[in-house]
């Protein structure tokens, strides 16, 4: 079964600085998709960024980028120029071709002014 591990339960960053959130996963599949979701205090889940496993190029969305290391099964999220609005729970997720989507336990990010 696929599993997703986020080993850091909490992190903090100063406003305008850069922070990297780590995620590892375990799978025997060769083709899959990876996602980062953000959950602010409102509890609504918001997609931050997605990555196709068959693409070697790392995905980028404005201030958000990933470092995808397929062989190491690692999928970290880098947030540049952190803003107060980035404070939230961040979840790493794995989606198999069978449509099953599994989340990690999440990481709470605090942004200090």
């Amino acid at each position, binding site marked *: 079964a696929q599993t997703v591990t*986020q080993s850091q339960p909490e992190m903090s960053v100063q406003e305008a600085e850069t922070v990297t959130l780590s995620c590892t996963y375990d799978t025997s599949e060769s083709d899959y998709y990876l*996602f980062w979701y953000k959950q602010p205090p409102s509890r*609504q889940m918001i997609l931050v960024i997605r990555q*196709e496993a068959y693409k070697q190029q790392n995905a980028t969305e404005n201030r958000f980028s990933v470092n995808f290391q397929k062989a190491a099964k690692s999928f970290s999220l880098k947030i540049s120029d952190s803003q107060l609005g980035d404070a939230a729970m961040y979840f790493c997720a794995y989606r198999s071709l069978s449509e*099953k*989507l599994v989340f*990690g336990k999440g990481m709470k990010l605090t942004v200090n002014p």
Partner: protein
Amino acid sequence: SQTIHQWPATLVQPVGSPLSLECTVEGTSNPNLYWYRQAAGRGLQLLFYSVGIGQISSEVPQNLSASRPQDRQFILSSKKLLLSDSGFYLCAWSVHGSYRDNSPLHFGNGTRLTVT
């Protein structure tokens, strides 16, 4: 545009009582549907997912069940609630995948269930 409705928003139920949470999606057909539970201090636990009517995959062999009576309706049920069933329940949908589909999940607003 597609929308997802989940209700009720909050629910307080006594131990041993039944449960029925409903989720419907509008504006799309044959979506993948998911039920997740988020307990305090824990991540999102996948409970059930469905890729079509009558096709339910269970990830958690507990006292919960799910049904998909219509294409865009997904129901989470229990015959007898336990204290441990308390949590935040999220319904979600995604586009039914082609081989190269990377569509994200779209979440409902969630139901906060308190079992007393």
